[in-house]
C-alpha cells in the first residue's frame, strides 16, 4: 500500500515537473555542466562538470566532477595555453567549448581529452598526467584541427616519412607504447606514443612545436614531419605562428 502511494507521488511529480531546458545541453549534448567562464578574449566558452556525466550512444564516455580549487587552478593553465589561438583561427577549426572534468574515460580507458569537432567541443581531464598537462591540451586541440581538415593531413603522405619497415599500430589503444616522455634521441618520433597511429604522431609533433620543447636536429624524418605540420597549418591560417 505504501509502495503504491509512493509510486503515485513519484508519477505525479514527473507529470508536474517542467521540461528540462538546459541551454548547455541543448548546444553540446553533454549533461550536468555549468558555466565556468564566458568572457574570454578568443570567445572560447568554458564549462565544468557540476556532477558526473555519461555520454555517447553506448554511454561509454564517462567523466566526474572535480573540486573548485582544481577547477580554478587548471582553468588558469588551460586558458593561458588556449589564449594563444585567435578567435578567427578557432572559428576555422570549429572549436568553441571547453569542458573541464576529472577522470575522463572511454569504455573504461582513461584519456586526456575528447575532441569533438562537430559539436565544437573539447573535453579535458584535469587530472590526466600533471607532467604533460599543458602539452596534452595542444595535442587534443590538434585532433580538432585534424578532424576538420582530414584531406589536408593526408595519412598516406605522412606514413612515407617513416622508415619503410616501420608500421603503426591498428589503433591508438591497440599498442602498449603509450609513453609521453620526449625522446633524447628522436629517430623520427618525439615520443613512444607517436608510434601508435599517424594522427597521434601528428598531434605529438604539433604539440611539441607549440610548446617549443624540441631542438633542431639532423633527424631527417622528424624534420620532414615538422615541415609537413607547419605547411598544413599555414594553409589553414596563413598568419599562424608556432
Amino acid at each position, binding site marked *: 500500500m505504501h509502495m503504491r502511494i509512493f509510486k503515485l507521488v513519484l508519477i505525479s511529480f514527473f507529470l508536474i515537473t*517542467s*521540461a528540462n*531546458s538546459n541551454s548547455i545541453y541543448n548546444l553540446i549534448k553533454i549533461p550536468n555542466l555549468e558555466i565556468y567562464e*564566458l568572457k574570454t578574449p578568443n570567445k572560447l566558452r568554458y564549462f565544468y562538470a557540476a556532477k558526473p556525466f555519461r555520454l555517447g550512444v553506448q554511454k561509454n564516455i564517462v567523466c566526474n566532477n572535480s573540486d573548485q580549487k582544481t577547477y580554478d587552478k587548471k582553468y588558469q593553465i588551460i586558458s593561458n595555453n588556449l589564449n594563444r589561438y585567435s578567435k578567427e583561427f578557432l572559428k576555422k577549426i570549429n572549436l*568553441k567549448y571547453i569542458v573541464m572534468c576529472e577522470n575522463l574515460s572511454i569504455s573504461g580507458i582513461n584519456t586526456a581529452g575528447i575532441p569533438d569537432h*562537430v559539436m565544437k567541443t573539447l573535453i579535458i581531464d584535469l587530472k590526466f598526467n600533471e607532467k604533460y598537462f599543458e602539452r596534452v591540451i595542444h595535442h587534443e586541440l590538434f585532433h580538432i584541427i585534424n578532424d576538420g581538415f582530414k584531406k589536408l593531413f593526408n595519412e598516406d603522405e605522412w606514413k612515407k616519412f617513416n622508415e619503410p619497415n616501420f608500421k603503426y599500430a591498428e589503433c591508438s589503444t591497440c599498442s602498449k607504447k603509450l609513453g609521453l616522455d620526449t625522446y633524447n634521441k628522436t629517430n623520427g618520433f618525439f615520443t613512444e606514443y607517436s608510434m601508435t597511429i599517424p594522427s597521434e604522431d601528428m598531434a605529438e609533433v604539433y604539440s611539441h612545436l607549440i610548446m617549443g620543447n624540441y631542438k633542431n636536429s639532423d633527424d631527417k624524418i622528424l624534420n620532414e614531419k615538422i615541415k609537413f605540420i607547419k605547411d598544413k597549418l599555414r594553409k589553414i591560417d596563413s598568419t599562424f605562428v608556432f
Partner: protein
Amino acid sequence: MIKKVKASLHEKLILIFLILLGVFALSFAVIIKNKCLFVKNFDPQKINYSKPENIVVLNAECGNVIIELYPEISPNGVERFKKLINSESYDNVAFHRVIKDKLVQTGDIQFGKKNKIDYGKIGTGKSELGTIKSEIDAEFNFDKGSVGLARSLKYNTEDSQFFIILDDEPLFEGEYTPIGKVIYGIQVLEKIKYSHRSEYVLRPDFVNTVRMFK
C-alpha cells in the same frame, strides 16, 4: 395561510458564504480560462519608433508583440525575415517549440500551418527560398526578448524558423543569427502554450499575423 419563516442569523451567514463562494468560483474560472486577462495589448500606432521601417508587429492570441529588426547586424537574416513577412507566410503558423520561461519558436511554414499541421514533421519544414548563411560574427547580447533565426546542428542552415527568448541566453551569442529584439509585448509570448513533458507542443498556439509596421 402560510406562515412566513424568518431565516436565522446562522442561515443568513451560510447564504452569504455560499454566494461569496459562487462569485469567487466564477471569477476564478474566468481568470483560469482567460490566460490573456492581465496581458497588456500594445497598440503599435500609439508608439513612436526611431526606425519605423524596421518594426514588425506579430499578433498572437494575447495581443501584439512589437519587434525591432537589426539589419545592420544581420542583413541577410533580416532580409529573409522581411520577405517571408511580406508574403504573409508566417500567418497561422504554430508556436511548435516552447520551453516555459526560456523560448518560443515558430516559423515552420511548411508543416506548421493551422489548417495542415503535420505533427510528425513540424520543426523540419522549409520555405522553398533555400537556406541562408549564419551571421554570427557581430557582438550581440542575447538578452530577454532577442529574436534569432533557428537552424539545424550545422551553421548556414537558417531558413524561415525563428525563436524569441524569454530569458537571457549568453551562450546563444556566436551560435545563432540575431535578427532583432522585442521592444513591447513580451508578456504575450509568455502566455504561449507549452508542454510540461516536451519542448514540442501538441495542439499548439498559433501566430495570427506578422506584419511590417510600415
